[in-house]
Structure formats: structure tokens, C-alpha cells
């Protein structure tokens, strides 16, 4: 892999992360990060849609008339989302139920439209593929970090496996109580904000 391709993949991980830098896809980042399980499945769903849509749109880019390009992009993305939604319903019914509308709402996820419009429309098949993977990983990375904190402090578990020993809990005679704020959307907001704070402290990035 040459240098440029590497940069296309690694750039969205931290420096140009779709969530913490571009502040896109916040809605789903708040909604599906209560449990790690959901976050991981959501990451896979989004990776599939983003990579496929980037590939398809970059292959079609010369044939799409400029005036109707958004409609065409939306049609491609919507078809892919319906596909992944059906697959999840068929094979991972429980999680698909927990994710509820948020799989369907991938259609409106700004990251996908943004990459299609800003990248896949101008670049060739290979670069769009890398870009799709890079951005999905950047998105998934943040989702997994946020959900780790939320599940550990909100439910005391990771992947539904009890991490905080049960004897520590107040009901069992201990003193610990799960943090209910982590189960609410503001908990995700606060963790996301802290991640952005740390990142900007290190990269010295300041919004104009």
C-alpha cells in the first residue's frame, strides 16, 4: 500500500475523525452506545453501507448527472441500508430489535452522504474503498470507546459479561451503585465531549 492510500485510511481515525472532528453521525453515536454489543453491530452495519456505497458511487460517478446526484446517492445508500436491515433481522433478531430505527436511520447518517458527495464523486474505485474503510473505522472506534464507558459504568458489564463484581453492589450488601446517567443520552454526550476535549488538547486544534 502506498503512502497516499495509507493516509486515506489513517486520517479519519484521529486527525479527521468523522465524529470527534467533523461532528457528524452524533445521533446514532448517542443512541446505540448503551451496550457494546449494539455499538459493534452498528459499526459493522455502517462499515458495510459506507464501503459499498463509496464503491458503487465512485464506479458510477462519471455517469451520474450533476443535477440529480444527491437523489442517485440516496437511492444507492437506501438500497444498501434496506439490505443490511433485512440481514440483521434475519440473523441477529434481538440486536436488530434493540437497534430499532437506528439501522434504518443509517440512510440519513451524514457521514455516508458526506463521503459519497465529498470523496467518492471525485475519486476512483480503490481510493473510495480505502476512504470508506477509514471513515467506518473512525466512526466505530469512537462508538466502541463511548460504549465501553457507558456499559461499564452504566450496567457494570462489558458485552453483557459482568465486570464489576456483584458483591460490591448495594443490593448485595456492598456500596456500589450503577451510574444511571450513563444509560441516558446525556451520558454519551458528556463522554463524547470529554473525548473531543482530550483529542483537541493533544492536536492543538481550535475551531475558528
Amino acid at each position: 500500500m502506498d503512502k497516499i492510500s495509507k493516509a486515506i485510511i489513517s486520517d479519519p481515525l484521529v486527525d479527521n475523525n468523522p465524529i470527534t472532528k467533523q461532528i457528524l453521525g452524533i445521533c446514532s453515536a448517542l443512541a446505540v452506545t448503551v451496550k457494546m454489543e449494539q455499538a459493534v453491530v452498528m459499526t459493522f452495519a455502517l462499515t458495510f453501507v459506507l464501503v459499498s456505497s463509496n464503491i458503487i458511487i465512485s464506479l458510477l460517478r462519471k455517469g451520474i448527472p450533476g443535477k440529480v446526484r444527491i437523489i442517485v446517492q440516496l437511492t444507492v445508500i437506501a438500497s444498501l441500508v434496506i439490505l443490511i436491515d433485512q440481514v440483521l433481522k434475519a440473523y441477529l433478531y434481538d440486536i436488530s430489535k434493540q437497534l430499532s430505527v437506528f439501522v434504518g436511520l443509517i440512510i440519513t447518517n451524514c457521514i455516508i452522504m458526506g463521503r459519497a458527495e465529498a470523496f467518492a464523486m471525485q475519486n476512483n474505485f480503490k481510493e473510495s474503498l480505502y476512504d470508506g474503510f477509514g471513515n467506518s473505522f473512525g466512526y466505530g472506534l469512537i462508538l466502541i470507546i463511548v460504549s465501553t464507558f457507558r456499559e461499564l459504568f452504566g450496567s457494570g458489564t462489558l458485552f453483557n459479561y459482568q465486570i464489576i463484581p456483584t458483591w460490591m453492589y448495594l443490593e448485595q450488601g456492598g456500596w456500589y451503585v450503577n451510574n444511571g446517567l450513563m444509560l441516558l443520552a446525556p451520558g454519551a454526550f458528556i463522554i463524547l465531549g470529554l473525548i473531543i476535549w482530550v483529542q483537541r488538547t493533544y492536536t492543538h486544534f481550535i475551531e475558528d
Partner: protein
Amino acid sequence: MKILRNILDKIEPHFLGNGKYHKLYPLYEMADTFLFTPSDKTKNGPHVRDAIDIKRVMSFVVIAMLPALLFGIYNIGRQIDSSGDIFTTFLAGLPVVLPIILVSYTVGGFWEMLFAVTRKHEINEGFLVTGMLIPLVMPPTIPLWMVAVATSFGVVIGKEIFGGTGYNIFNPALVARAFIFFAYPGAISGDAVWAIAKNREGFIDGISQATPLLQASAEQGVQALELIKGQFSWWDMFYGFIPGSIGETSTLAIIIGGLFLLFTGIGNWRIMAGTLLGMVLTAKLTNIFAVAVSSENPMLYLPAEYHFVMGGFAFGMVFMATDPVSASQTDKGRWMYGILIGFMCVIIRSINPAYPEGMMLAILFANAFAPLIDYFVMKSHIKQRVKRFAA
């Protein structure tokens, strides 16, 4: 005093420029300016001369809180053991309240110092007040580790994240309380946390006793006064012999503190008056409304004078709403800000059954709107001036 000055002067070189502990300079500076009037002179204009600085302001607020604190300790002692005289009762309450205050100051002080050292600025005095406000708005049964977590949250997310003292949008002490309210609702709501007593083994433990506010909102179809009748009289609530958060029960002690703040010019009378006005008007409106539609909701019937002595209204009005950083800065804005708090407090108390205590959320809500209120007040001032000078 001379000895102290000499010690401070002797160790000062270690904290300056190349000294061994120059990283800890904020600590030295804090001790020095806390004990002595800073000798620094203002170097640029305007040269305002005034004996008062942030440190004095904050110390005065802490002094104003003392009556509420002392009464709170006494009230808790009275719940544990009311047989002895005033002094022994007071001593009985001390072991409950003192640890909470210590944890709040230690944890908050740690964060303040950490940020002061990494950001290389002096330790601000704002925490002097926040560290005392936090224990006063906690129920006596609160576990100490929750106080520690909440104080960390209040200081870091409520204040430091915005740049430290003077930049915060919300009142850090209320952020800390709101954190516990949403994160550990079992520890700060319901009827099992507000009073304390010796259990059979002689340990001090929480007992089930509802606060007047909880009592008043308990049942549908009855008027609030009926529900609290026989348990708490207005004067009980005014003097503060009721279960509740440590510092908020006695309206009398809070009024003494409030008068002190007004007398020294530290608390803003417009905010307090606005809050009171907003509360009274809204309570009157809900009373009329409740009778008109013969409502089932008990809280809608509660008269204004009861709203005043129940729950955290008086405490919030005197100590929380007047926080000079998070309140409105213009005179007209202060009135509107206060009225908004009073209005929201009654509305949340009476219309939302999930939150019997509306004062905390009302103040946080008004905090969020304070800059907007100021913005429109300024705009209207500018408009008036333009009109005046246009001709």
C-alpha cells in the same frame, strides 16, 4: 502574623522561576493571598481602588452560609438524638455532616490544584463557595463516594471544561447535585434519604420520612395543604425542623445569610426579588387555575408562602441563583432571570410529578438562558441609544 509573613517570605524563592517547587507556585500563591492582602498593584488602567477582591467576596459568601450550615448540623443531630441540650445535639449531627464537607473540599481542591498547575494559573477562590454549597444541598444519608464523584463532575464538567472560575455557564454546585440526581436517583430522591436516626444496633442510618414537598405531592385528588397538615406546620418549615437536604431546611437561617449578602452588597437584590416575584405570581396563577378546573393535582393548590418555605426554594434563591458568574449581568436581565427561575420552579414542582423539587432544575434552566437574556437587554439598550441620538 509577623511569623507567618516571615515563613512565607522565606519559602517564596523555592516556588519562583527556577526554584525547586516552581510547578507548585499556585499552591504558594493561594496560601499567601488567603492569609494576606495581595501586594500586587494593578499595572494598567483603569485603576479601580477597592478593598474587596474575589477572595473576600467568596469568604463573605461562606460566612453567609454559616447559619444554614450550623442549623443543618443541629437539625440532623436532633433527628438522631433530641434528648440532650443544644450543644450535645449539635455534636451528634457533626459526624454526619463534617465528612461530607471534608470530602467535598478535598476532592474539589484536588481538581482545582491539578488544573491550576497544568494550566499554570493561580488557584481560584471560586471553589471555596462551591465546596461548601455541595454539602449543603446533599441529603444527610448521601454516601461519601458519591459526594466525591459528584464534586469531581461539578468541578470538571461544570467549570474547568469551560476554562475555570468565571467562565462557567452553570453553577458547579448545582451541576454536582444534578449529576447525583440523574446518575444515582436512589440516593437523592424518594422518601428514604432525607432523615437520619439511630437504628437498633445503634448505627446511624437513613429512615423513611418524606420531606414536606414529597408529602404535598403524594396523592392525587387532595389539596397539598391537607396532605401536610398535622405533620408539618408552616412555622416548622420556616424554622427548619423538617427532613431535607443538610442546609436547605431552615428558611430563617437562609434569610439571615441572605440579609448578610445583601448588606455587604455581594448578593444581588434584583435576582432575589425577581425569583420571589416570579414564584409568588406563578403560584397564585396555578392556584386560580387549579380551582377553575378543579384539578386532581395536589401541588397546584399549594399557596405561595408554602412554596417559599418548602424544599430548596429559599436556599436556591439566596445562594444559587445569585452566583455572579452564571446569572445575568444586566440589571433588567437580572429581573427577568429571577422571574424565570421562580416561574420554572413552581411549574416543575406542580406540573411534573417526577421532580417534586423544581428549584435545582429551574436554576440550571435559567443559567442556560442568562446569556441570551443579557444579549437582548443589551440590544434593546443599543436600539434606544440609536433612537436618542439619531435626531
